[in-house]
């Protein structure tokens, strides 16, 4: 929506959407109408078949999932061939209420895993007494449209001694395909083994915790009086697909559970670290680890890597400038970054990150040398961050999730979810991105002007949605009710003729300000769009004002 906290996050960037690109998705088959359940997408995950992509959205009131069937058109552009949406019980969400504000890295991501017959699995949060999604309840299982299941996890009596339910929030998954076991990292309550070898509808569930002293798994005590300080919180899990060993990210070190169940330290250098996440993949196989801890009130984070065919221990990931020179400071020195997910494609890793508050988000491109700056310089975090500035999204919305999925037999595609601007999909490993989001049908040659959304606060962003039949020079102006011009947005700006939308989201929006940069008062404003072919269209937007 338009002015709640998260919107603000967008305007300030609209809420923080320093909004957004030209002719959104010039190749979309489903250009008009409802493509996604909502443009407030928070998670993406591979669907059941090639070309399928799950999108979990939370609207202002409702939430739901979309299963997209994506493909390539004749010119190689992404197209939406089919879209099915399904609402989800509003009592539950994949997003915890404080995901943008939480200080702890393990709580600032939405874990996603593809888990055989369970489909795509994501954490599930229920409402607490204050009606906030802060009660961990289990996980969502997205099997297919019509079979989006809520899979609750019991909270044992022993958990009563845990003061904050979020201490046992689900923050990681690892699925072992050969044994059909889904392992679930559950913070203070250790690990849940969700065995579906006898069918997804007949799971065998067991809980275990990692003893701090012996570093061995023991069954989760069920009595009501348990000293959890004897156990390590578990926040991340990853399986080595070659050996089926499971890597465990814990409150104190990184641990390796071999196939026979024994546990050993996986890294000397990380033994004393607070390891908040672990991801394995790529060619050659590599493990990426995130560490994050509060130190004297400051969050100290780090990104580490180890090639699994090497005997060398984990090393801090190098951050390079565009010339390949290693920089002394990395992205964690600039802000409180958190990894949302890591996606491996060949020898590259796409590390989804965002900062606390969500005002900066995107992904880091990690190659064999390190995280490579995409532009000139390299001293600032933005030089490494791929996001709105590099065209991943066409509006400055928060990138909340990243995944990969097979687009067809030959193409491995990437997808990111954005909180407010739908999703973006790349079929060329991040070189170009196609935004996909809900758009209403427009009349041609400025026949329809829609302000999206049409109610904003000053500092927010209302997109001027229009289309012209042929390439045009567009002028957009905003008038008050008494038809005094308060703002000229663009003047004779070139825009492409398009069958669906000619808007350039990076420029064609109104932020509720006048030409002098002052917030316009609460009221209705009229937006005139003119082209150089004599066409004129009008849209309406309401500003609820803003601080002066």
């Amino acid at each position: 929506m338009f002015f709640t906290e998260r919107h603000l996050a967008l305007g300030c960037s609209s809420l923080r959407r320093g909004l957004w690109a030209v002719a959104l998705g010039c190749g979309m088959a489903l250009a008009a109408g409802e493509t996604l359940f909502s443009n407030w997408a928070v998670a993406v995950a591979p669907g059941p078949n090639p070309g399928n992509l799950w999108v979990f959205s939370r609207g202002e009131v409702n939430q739901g999932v979309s299963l997209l069937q994506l493909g390539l058109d004749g010119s190689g552009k992404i197209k939406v061939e089919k879209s099915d949406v399904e609402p989800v019980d509003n009592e539950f969400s994949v997003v915890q209420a404080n995901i943008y504000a939480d200080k702890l890295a393990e709580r600032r991501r939405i874990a996603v895993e593809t888990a055989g017959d369970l489909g795509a699995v994501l954490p599930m949060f229920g409402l607490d007494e204050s009606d906030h999604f802060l009660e961990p309840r289990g996980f969502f299982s997205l099997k297919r449209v019509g079979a989006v299941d809520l899979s609750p996890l019991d909270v044992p009596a022993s958990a009563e001694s845990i003061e904050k339910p979020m201490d046992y929030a689900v923050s990681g998954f690892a699925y072992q395909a050969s044994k059909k076991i889904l392992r679930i990292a559950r913070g203070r309550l250790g690990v849940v083994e969700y065995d579906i070898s006898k069918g997804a509808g007949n799971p065998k569930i067991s809980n275990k915790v990692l003893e701090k002293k012996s570093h061995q798994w023991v069954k989760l005590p069920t009595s009501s009086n348990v000293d959890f300080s004897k156990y390590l919180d578990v926040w991340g899990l990853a399986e080595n697909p070659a050996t089926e060993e499971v890597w465990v990210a814990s409150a104190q070190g990184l641990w390796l559970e071999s196939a026979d169940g024994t546990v050993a330290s996986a890294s000397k250098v990380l033994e004393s670290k607070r390891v908040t996440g672990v991801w394995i993949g790529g060619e050659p196989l590599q493990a990426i680890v995130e560490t994050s801890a509060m130190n004297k009130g400051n969050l100290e984070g780090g990104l580490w890597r180890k090639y699994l065919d090497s005997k060398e221990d984990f090393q801090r990931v190098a951050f390079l400038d565009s010339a390949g020179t290693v920089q002394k400071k990395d992205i964690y020195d600039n802000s409180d970054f958190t990894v949302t997910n890591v996606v491996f494609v060949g020898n590259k890793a796409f590390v989804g990150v965002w900062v606390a508050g969500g005002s900066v988000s995107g992904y880091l491109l990690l190659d064999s040398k390190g995280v490579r700056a995409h532009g000139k310089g390299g001293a600032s975090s933005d030089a490494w961050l791929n996001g709105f500035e590099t065209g991943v999204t066409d509006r400055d919305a928060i990138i909340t999730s990243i995944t990969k999925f097979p687009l067809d037999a030959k193409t491995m595609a990437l997808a990111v979810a954005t909180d407010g601007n739908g999703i973006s999909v790349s079929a060329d490993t991040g070189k170009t991105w196609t935004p996909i989001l809900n758009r209403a049908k427009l009349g041609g040659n400025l026949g329809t002007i829609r302000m999206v959304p049409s109610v904003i606060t000053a500092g927010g962003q209302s997109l001027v949605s229009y289309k012209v039949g042929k390439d045009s020079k567009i002028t957009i102006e905003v008038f008050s009710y008494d038809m005094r011009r308060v703002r000229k947005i663009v003047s004779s700006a070139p825009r492409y003729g398009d069958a669906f939308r000619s808007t350039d989201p990076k420029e064609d929006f109104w932020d509720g300000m006048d030409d002098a940069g002052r917030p316009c008062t609460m009221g209705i404003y009229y937006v005139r769009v003119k082209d150089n072919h004599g066409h004129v269209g009008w849209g309406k937007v309401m500003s609820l004002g803003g601080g002066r």
Partner: protein
Amino acid sequence: MKRLHAILSLAALLLSLLASTAFAGVVEKKASLGGFDGFVERMGAGTRELGRGNTGSADTASMPAAYWNPAILGFRGNFGYTLNGEKRDLDRAGGALGVESPVGKRMGVGFAMLYRGDLDFEVIDDDDQTLGTAKPFFSMMYLGFSYRATRRDAFGLSLSMSYDNMDVADYYDNIDLNDGYTSPVSLNLGWLRQWNEKWSTSVVIRNLSFSKNLSSRWTKTVSGDNSVSSTEGVRPKVLQIGAGYRSKVMGKPVYAWMEALDYQLADTLLVFDTHWHLWTARMGFECEIIPDGTVRVGMDDVNYMVGLGYKFKIPIGKKKYLFDANYALTYESEAGLWNPLSFGLRGYIP
């Protein structure tokens, strides 16, 4: 010749004021007047006055007087009323009504209500879905009093307040959004002097308040749950100076009206820095081309108007009641919009 000269002089003064407005716009980027509260007031009231460029503060016959210049009420001899309505392009509907009455021989009292709204505001969410249609409206009410100190001079004051309703709260169930916003009472002061049969002048000061800096400024609490930041309403202080000239050309009664308006954009008691002032001007001419039939032209800032008016009397019982029917066409030049639907009726009850 003298009359023509006087009219041309008025026009030249007006043009110089307009030029200064344009010049100021080039030199400095000022906040836009359109971004401030008060558009209901700025758009005027009364079809008769609209047809001649929204000029009315120096005319003892203007209605509703509580809005135009409360001092006018001191010149009322009969109970008067006015009812006006208009529909402008882009679904904008507006209107004004007023009633006023003499009190004793030297005083008058009047009430005015101004209304503006949009009849078809499409509420669109972030998903580009139309949630429905809202009908937001904005209104201002005036209660005016006047005392005629001499045969030629009257002084008046009016109390004004606004009530706006955005009509969108129903579309946002998850936010405790407020729709209605009421401003505190502002004070408007007026003076009108009828120098002679030809000339009249007026001074109106609008939007003084009882708060700091005498500014008409107030807080609008947008949501009850603080999910949306509160905002402020600000109606700039206005100094409105008007003049009227009555004469005859070729035996036909001719009237010329002009007003110069200064809007102080700064929230200070008084500031002389031109950056914080915005000037506009209005002028209008009318000619009674047939008995009781008047043609009007006018200009309000960069908007142009044409008006028609016709007076007639209807005997009811032993009395004859005067009615004055008016029409105006407005061209909002900056936006390029024609508005041909403004109608008004006014009259007196003897």
